[in-house]
């Protein structure tokens, strides 16, 4: 039943929701988009529940999530320096795409316990989850080339901003309003750029460090 759901949700239910939203009309777009991102998280959650995850893997997921959440507190004195995206990418690079998605989604969910839940929670979950998922798919090139890593950090910064701005536009205009979207993107652009720079810095420093730390742990404990 669960295995079936993992397939049915992305292949049938999500398209059905989108079509239904289209039929009902513009007023439902914001609601439909929220529903779609929430449903988008479900297959990953289900796959994790069913997957054969050892204690080690479960703890590692919790640790990576906790590090990215605590990172938001730790770097609070340094403006715009939030290691969440970078930690999600690192987590995905070394532990796979499903793992990356969960690190991202859970980081958003848990950090909003401290910073406030809101209608943006599902979108943050989905955005960071997606960044992790894609990073997991690209893990080999990301590990091999610094350039790819930088490009991906830039891409993920924009992806995050696009997903959240799109939602805001859909909500405010009951439809996609390009002017508002561009205005939102433009106002958040400087912040996005600072985030991207901090992500790049963080990734360039921590990716080699992390792989060293991980190798040591694996060697020490098997």
């Amino acid at each position, binding site marked *: 039943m669960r295995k079936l759901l993992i397939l049915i949700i992305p292949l049938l239910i999500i398209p059905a929701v989108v079509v239904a939203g289209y039929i009902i009309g513009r*007023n*439902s777009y*914001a*609601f439909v988009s*929220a529903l779609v991102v929430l449903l988008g998280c479900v297959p990953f*959650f*289900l796959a*994790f*529940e069913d997957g*054969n*995850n*050892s*204690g*080690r893997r*479960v*703890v*590692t*997921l*919790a*640790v990576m*999530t*906790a*590090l990215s*959440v*605590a*990172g938001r*507190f*730790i*770097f609070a*004195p*340094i403006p715009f*320096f939030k*290691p969440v995206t970078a930690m999600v990418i690192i987590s995905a690079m070394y532990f796979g795409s499903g793992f990356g998605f*969960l690190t991202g989604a*859970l980081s958003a*969910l*848990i950090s909003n*316990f*401290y910073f*406030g*839940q*809101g*209608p943006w929670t599902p979108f943050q979950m989905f955005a960071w989850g997606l960044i992790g998922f894609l990073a997991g798919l690209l893990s080999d090139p990301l590990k091999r080339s610094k350039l790819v890593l930088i490009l991906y950090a830039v891409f993920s910064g924009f992806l995050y901003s696009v997903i959240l701005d799109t939602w805001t536009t859909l*909500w*405010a*205009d*009951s439809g996609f*309003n390009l*002017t*508002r979207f561009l*205005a939102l993107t433009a106002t958040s652009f400087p912040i996005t750029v600072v985030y991207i720079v901090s992500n790049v810095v*963080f990734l360039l*420093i*921590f990716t080699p*460090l*992390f792989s060293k*730390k*991980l190798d040591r*742990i694996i060697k020490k*404990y098997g």
Partner: protein
Amino acid sequence: MNTFRNLHPVTLLLYFSFVTVFSVFNFNPVYLCFSLLGAALYFASVKGVFVMLKSMAGYFIMLLAVAALNPLFSHNGATALFFINDNRVTLEAFCFGAALGLAIASALCWFSCIGEVFDSEKLLYLFGRASPKLAAVISLSLRLVPGIFKSFKEIHSAQSSFSSNQGRVRRFLSSFSAVITQSLENSIITADSMNARGFALKKRTRFSRFRFTAYDAGFSAFFVLLGTFICVGWFSFEFYPVISIGRLNALNIMSVVLFAVMSLTPFAYEVKEGVKWKISLSKI
């Protein structure tokens, strides 16, 4: 004291999904006014009037800003007030902006209430029902976050003796790197402790302190009924091209009244229980 937050998490989830969906995805100012009123009163009963008024002031400024800015993005509407660079600034867009501001305000206010009511324990309970393993991950993360923050502070202050010649950001990064090492190292002990207690051997159950009683069932049924009738009698409010309300019938009026009842339920609950408590105390 018996308070609204002591209802079963499933009942609370049902209630808050209704009110937030009705507030976030709806621009009908009639409904929204009741929504904001209910949220604000309940918020005041939880956090005190002063805190509520403070956040209301913030919401009000935000509402004005959204109302003022909306006509710049949206040129729909028949009644042009004036032009900026050949772009029409319409009354309707302005009114829609105000309604949007109202929707944002009531959504934010409801989410603040949710933050007060829905602590991690309740969320874990709901997650645990669907996915006990994921609930274990979330629970462990919640346990780790304060510890990681604490050891960062300790490491960072221990490092202060050495790194006078380093930049602030670099010092933060090197302390954070040490925190990662510590966390990975400790994760082995944690994993051992999980395995020693039989983690992942068979399908987990999830224990919780909550019990779904007839009382909770009654409230859940009440919310579902309210929600259904509110939807059935929903009346539409169009901003474009001109502001128009559909013809009001009895069902529409019922829908609005029931929505008001729904929004005010948490506040009324607190008031009723407060009074009951006072009476039962005076009898002692």
